[in-house]
């Protein structure tokens, strides 16, 4: 395990890390899952700067810190901070870096996390920078896959929904590319995976194929990763109405699927997984969210050198 690779270093993009780093985080997350309440962040202050609201991600980070007895400062949306007065990101970060040991930042502008990491004297953890990266989500996805399949290697992964704009899907493809996967891509024609990612898969000799129905590939799937089709992605509301119900996972679709299949979703869910799936033992999305707490504990502890 190469824990030194994380020490004092900002976590900005999944692309900054390799297979060994992912496995290190998985190993440490497993430790926190077994011992989630500890005293290791005692005396540490973690800033959570949410320039746009993301309740789920923020609560997950704050739960992770609270369980390790750290203190939290921050804001939950930019309208309540000095950003509203016109303060630059650089000034906000440099100021908050004086008050904290680590900054967790969510920001709507792409590349803001890299920039924050350059101007901050304390490490920055990217909790989402616009449509670009959300590395802790990807790492908790990996952890959930590992936990449910007992391996990350040689899995058949079906990605469903908005594959064009879905940040979590793009990062998951990049991260899983180290583990010899096979991808099934299920999306409306207008929301297909962008060419740059298909090119990436081809270059890495990773098999993939595109489908229009969930049921086309569900029988051979190990991980069914469902994402939300966002209304705001469609300029024409009629187009949205046409596709919104064609990518809904219903409980009966899971009949005859592999025993080890698990359904993942980055949440929030709207209607793309019908509620009758929730009680199916193959539904894993709420446990997946819980895994986020352990993964975030692992990341913070690794960066601050506390483990």
């Amino acid at each position: 395990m190469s824990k030194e690779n994380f020490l004092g270093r900002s976590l900005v993009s999944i692309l900054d890390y390799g297979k060994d780093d992912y496995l290190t985080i998985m190993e440490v997350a497993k430790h926190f899952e077994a011992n989630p309440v500890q005293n290791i962040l005692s005396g540490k202050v973690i800033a959570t700067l949410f320039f746009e609201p993301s309740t789920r991600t923020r609560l997950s980070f704050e739960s992770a810190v609270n369980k390790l007895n750290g203190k939290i400062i921050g804001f939950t949306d930019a309208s309540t901070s000095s950003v509203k007065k016109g303060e630059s990101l650089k000034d906000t970060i440099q100021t908050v870096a004086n008050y904290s040991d680590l900054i967790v930042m969510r920001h709507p502008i792409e590349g803001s996390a890299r920039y924050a990491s350059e101007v901050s004297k304390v490490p920055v953890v990217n909790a989402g920078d616009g449509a670009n990266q959300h590395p802790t989500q990807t790492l908790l996805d990996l952890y959930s896959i590992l936990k449910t399949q007992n391996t990350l290697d040689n899995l058949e992964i079906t990605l469903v929904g908005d594959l064009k704009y879905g940040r979590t899907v793009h990062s998951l493809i990049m991260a899983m590319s180290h583990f010899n996967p096979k991808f099934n891509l299920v999306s409306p024609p207008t929301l297909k995976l962008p060419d740059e990612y298909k090119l990436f898969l081809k270059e890495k000799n990773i098999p993939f194929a595109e489908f229009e129905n969930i049921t086309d590939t569900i029988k051979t799937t190990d991980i069914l990763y469902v994402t939300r089709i966002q209304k705001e992605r469609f300029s024409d509301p009629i187009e949205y109405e046409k596709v919104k119900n064609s990518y809904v996972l219903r409980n009966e679709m899971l009949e005859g699927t592999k025993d080890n299949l698990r359904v993942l979703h980055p949440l929030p869910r709207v209607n793309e997984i019908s509620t009758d799936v929730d009680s199916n033992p193959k539904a894993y999305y709420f446990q997946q969210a819980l895994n986020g707490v352990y993964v975030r504990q692992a990341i913070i502890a690794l960066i601050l050198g506390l483990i």
Partner: protein
Amino acid sequence: MVKENKELKVSAIKEGTVIDHIPASKLFKVIEILSLDKIDKQITFGTNLESKKLGRKAIIKISDKFFEEDEINKIALIAPDAKLNIIKDYEVVEKKVVKLPKQIHGIVKCVNPKCITNYEDVPPKFTVLEKNGKVALKCNYCEKITDEENIKLL
């Protein structure tokens, strides 16, 4: 009637650097990128000179100035065919071509309107990639690719 000798004569320099084969339309950008407007050396510019390869080319002769490789390579994006002649005692002692650097700082605007470099006072930084034989710039901030066709100078 005797024909005039129409050959263009730009005075030779004793020591320094001659940058040749600059596309004529890019001369002023090259001046800007190399900050030639801020140095106090003797500089001669020629532009709209005939060139078989470029149509119209520009040339810059700078006395007593020798560039570091990193510095001169910045112009490779806009003048990929530029050639450098290093002059010592009126003789060309070395010829060089410009090479694309691995990283480009400033100079180019990120194509992504949602990139932090287009919002705050952050100089863009790119990693230079080759894509289908063409130059592509990957933004170090937003990670989006700016293709050769979309390269816009700052």
